[in-house]
């Protein structure tokens, strides 16, 4: 051994904690700024957006899910601190048990979170997809209905053996519908297929009617034929300065309901068209919700990796600092959720 190695270790200068713990605290310092940037921006944006959506009808946020997840994280935080204490007391078996519970609770947390996310996706609560005004909601129904019609028409134009309709793609819906009309009312081809074609033509007609009313911005009920003879007649009868009744979201809501209840194409409309539901600042809400809870969930996964590495090891004395530092990180993850829960789920 060298003489240098026999010297008593020099007095440690600086902060009196292990380097790894100092590193973790410095990292947590940056994490505090990372999350408070999100939380602070959210508070500021919300204060500046009167009419922010808070009803669960709009946001599909469940206090129960959030509350249960809060409880899950609190229990996991407690387990981590007990595991750390057990490591300090060299009770490695006990530490392993509590780390395992923490890992399992992290899985439960992510499971509940994924259920929440599924609830959002199934109502199309996705940033950029939420209509914020009645006009946007009606236009969205129009687009979704058109997509359903195109998909149903594609069956006749893209037939593998022989297409029923001689149009290469269902791009030009007017041409397809004209040829489909001939096919449906003729006596060639499969009879059942001709019946389906008749139903699809009815759906096309319903969509076309809505589309024309949107273009003309006139009521479905009071002006039955938008841009058609009925529309022109109604316009002629207007006194000076008088306007035709405009399209109302309630009318479109009723139409969607009617289309979804149809025996033939109802299931396709149900699968492809969301009920019109405008939510003022809905996209801003969704962006903030997914950004904050998404980054939090990523932190949960990182925590699981840290605990997973410890659990996959022999978990002896050399892992004491690892468990302590991972624990500090996990408490921080809990800390962030402590603020996200009231801010997103209650306030």
């Amino acid at each position, binding site marked *: 051994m060298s003489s240098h190695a026999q010297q008593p270790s020099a007095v440690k200068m600086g*902060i*009196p*904690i292990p380097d790894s713990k100092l590193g973790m*605290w*410095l990292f947590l*310092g*940056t994490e*505090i*700024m990372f999350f*408070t940037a999100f939380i*602070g*921006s959210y*508070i*500021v*944006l919300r*204060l*500046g*957006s*009167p*009419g*922010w959506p*808070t*009803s*669960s*009808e*709009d946001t599909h946020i469940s206090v129960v899910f959030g*509350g249960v997840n*809060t*409880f899950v994280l*609190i*229990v996991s*935080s*407690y387990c*981590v*601190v*007990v595991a750390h*204490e057990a490591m*300090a007391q060299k009770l490695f078996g006990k530490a392993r048990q509590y780390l395992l519970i923490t890992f399992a609770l992290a899985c439960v947390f992510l499971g509940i979170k994924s259920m929440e996310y599924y609830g959002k996706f199934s109502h199309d609560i996705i940033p950029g997809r939420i209509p914020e*005004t*009645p*006009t*946007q909601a009606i236009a969205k129904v129009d687009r979704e209905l058109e997509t359903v019609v195109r998909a149903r028409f594609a069956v006749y134009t893209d037939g593998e053996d022989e297409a029923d309709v001689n149009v290469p793609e269902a791009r030009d819906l007017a041409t397809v519908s004209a040829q489909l009309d001939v096919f449906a009312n003729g006596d060639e081809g499969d009879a059942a297929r001709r019946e389906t074609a008749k139903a699809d033509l009815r759906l096309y007609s319903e969509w076309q009617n809505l589309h024309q009313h949107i273009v003309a911005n006139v009521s479905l009920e009071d002006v039955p034929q938008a841009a058609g003879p009925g529309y022109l007649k109604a316009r002629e009868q207007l006194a000076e300065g008088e306007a035709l009744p405009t399209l*109302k*979201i*309630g009318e479109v809501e009723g139409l969607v309901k009617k289309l979804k209840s149809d025996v033939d194409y109802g299931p396709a409309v149900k699968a492809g068209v969301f009920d019109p539901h*405008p939510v*003022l*600042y809905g996209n801003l809400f969704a962006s903030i919700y997914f950004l904050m809870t998404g980054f939090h969930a990523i932190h949960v996964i990182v925590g699981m990796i840290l605990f997973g590495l410890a659990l996959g090891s022999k978990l002896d004395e050399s892992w004491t600092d690892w468990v302590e530092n991972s*624990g*500090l990180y996990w*408490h*921080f993850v*809990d*800390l962030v959720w*402590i603020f996200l*829960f*009231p*801010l997103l789920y*209650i*306030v």
Partner: protein
Amino acid sequence: MAHEENGGHLNYFAVFIALCVFTGLSVVFDLLKFENRLITIVLVLAVAVAKAMCVMMFFMHLKFEGNWKYVLLAPTTILAIGLPLALLPDIGVAYYTPLAPQAGEWGEEMQAYKASHHGSGHAESPDAE
């Protein structure tokens, strides 16, 4: 240092129980549906601060750590508070009328629609300033 002073397992369990009680309180405050929503906001955020203090002081052992904690955490805290304060005057409490185009379309029709769909929900009014 921290481990010599933290009082051991039982105290951790007491902190855990306190955290559970605080979480229950948050939910109760939400269910109480105060007439003035501000009361709920203040109460649940106060509870969140109390929970955060419990976690930081006892689970993260900051109560038992040396003064280095102030050196490390004070600058980040100042910067963390600084960002929302810097944004607040322009976005949060703008002195001019905010002109979000989508808010302009929310007239009587939408208020009636919202009332019929949400019942007596506590959705904020877009007109509220």
